[in-house]
């Protein structure tokens, strides 16, 4: 889907836009402050992880890989990292499958209550994650079939939190897809499945891949839902870092964070390569 902004930009392509240097100086200063506030904590984590001393000081005491080594030899942190990574992979596969299928249904079939169903599917994005996690926790306890504090129960939570992203990105791709292309294939004799796989799928694939990467990274960094659902032997990385932060300040946690940052930077860069990032403005991520 192109936003109205993109449409307007296309229509008025010839008209001079304001150039950046014309954006008022005070705006540039505030914008700079925003950038610093958003990115400074990330940079500090990277510096702490690569710093030689116990505490990060200004200027840093020198470059060292000691905390990276400490992280790699710390069984708890490595285990958490692997748990998060594995859960994110599994969540990503399931969320991409169910989300893509639901998005196809909702963009292709018109039925009363479609907007309502769409709002229902997107609502985990909008509701407080802690409340959804709590609801699942109490539900599992009440069911008494061993889902509480289990890997399965935690995964269900992560799939719930990530499927809306896939539905969002895939239906955006489907809305901007010209259905007459698929109809042309049908009229030339292709079956519905063939027409979909040969014509539609390659065109909406960037949307699906973007949704999958989002699902992966949202699951990997998921804190709110994991809070009530994780166990002492099943601690995803964000919970593990949180636990260690409550007791003492370990640069080892920063080293673990560094590896998480690398993953986020890589996946965001990938999403930017395959889709138009401007399209996501207005979609809530958490």
């Amino acid at each position, binding site marked *: 889907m192109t936003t109205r902004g993109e449409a307007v930009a296309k229509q008025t392509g010839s008209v001079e836009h304001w150039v950046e240097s014309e954006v008022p100086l005070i705006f540039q200063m505030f914008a700079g402050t925003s950038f610093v506030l958003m990115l400074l*904590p990330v940079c500090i984590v990277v510096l702490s992880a690569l710093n030689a001393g116990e505490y990060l*000081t*200004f200027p840093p005491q020198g470059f060292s890989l000691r905390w990276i080594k400490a992280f790699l030899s710390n069984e708890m942190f490595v285990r958490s990292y692997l748990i998060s990574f594995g859960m994110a992979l599994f969540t990503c596969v399931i969320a991409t499958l169910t989300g893509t299928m639901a998005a196809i249904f909702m963009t292709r079939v018109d039925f009363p209550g479609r907007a309502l169903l769409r709002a229902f599917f*997107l609502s985990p994005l909008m509701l407080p994650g802690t409340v959804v996690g709590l609801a699942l926790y109490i539900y599992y306890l009440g069911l008494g079939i061993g889902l509480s504090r289990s890997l399965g129960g935690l995964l269900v939570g992560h799939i719930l939190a990530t499927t809306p992203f896939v539905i969002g990105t895939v239906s955006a791709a489907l809305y901007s897809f010209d259905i007459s292309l698929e109809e042309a294939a049908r009229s030339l004799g292709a079956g519905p499945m063939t027409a979909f796989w040969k014509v539609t799928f390659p065109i909406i694939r960037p949307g699906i891949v973007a949704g999958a990467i989002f699902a992966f990274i949202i699951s990997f960094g998921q804190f709110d839902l994991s809070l009530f659902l994780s166990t002492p032997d099943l601690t995803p990385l964000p919970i593990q870092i949180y636990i260690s932060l409550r007791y003492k300040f370990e640069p080892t946690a920063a080293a673990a964070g560094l590896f998480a940052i690398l993953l986020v930077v890589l996946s965001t860069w990938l999403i930017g390569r395959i889709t138009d990032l401007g399209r996501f403005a*207005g979609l809530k991520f958490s």
Partner: protein
Amino acid sequence: MSQRPQRLLNRLVLLVLPALALFVIFFAVPLFLLFAIAFNRSQRGVVTFQPSSFTLANFARFFNDSLFFGALFNSLILAISVATLCLLLGYPLAYLIAKSRNPQRTTLYTTMVLISMQLDPVIRAYGLMVLLGDNGLINGTLIKAGWILAPLPLMYNWFGTIVGLVQNCLPFMVLALIGIIRSINPSVEEAARSLGASRWQTFFRVAFPLTLPGVLSGFLLVFSLSISSYIVPVLMGGWKILVLPLHIYQQILERANFQFGASIALILFVISTLAVTVYHRITQRTIGGLV
């Protein structure tokens, strides 16, 4: 669509069933039960819904005890201040990104905003704690330089909590605003300029009013995000800034008082849903829905 054969339609329904089943069984029903339990009499350790014991006692307790009532007040103050600050800081950045003519730079800026947003809040809080702590970068540097004798109270108070939440929510505000700022037709602004309006008059009289729906939706989005944050008030407020999510956590995991915890969760849910519904209405009208 109506010409499509009924058989194909029936097969298409199969596509939505897995997602629908998942969302009904593990999302709608659990939420419904959670809120049903909020109307049960408090009984430590009982998690199942008791149809026979309907009571409003949990809510009466909440609104009669200043500890909980105060937490609601704290949560509201916190969410409103964070949303206001995010707007002040986020609008100029969104404006800069939206008005940029260089597509590479736009992509770079948007990528940086997205990276900050997707990194989990605990890691970002770690960075802020290293920055703002008593032995942190700011205090350490200022003390070493001899400018201050005792560390400034930058963390474990309102200031730290607000900085942490603004840090967390700023990317959402920026992304909520870029689209609508970009949608202002530049010729409208140029018309104002050519009629003699100064740059600031053009901004405040023409551009800004056109983006008001985005401003309101960004505000409500950040409001609902920050009112439900648990991790930032815990780490940056050090359990000194008591907000609703902290009480929910305590009632459930420390007191095993599921009914009372559920009633606090319901109150939080209602406030945040109200904000989100209004947000949804606005975005539906202005940008044709999310995504």
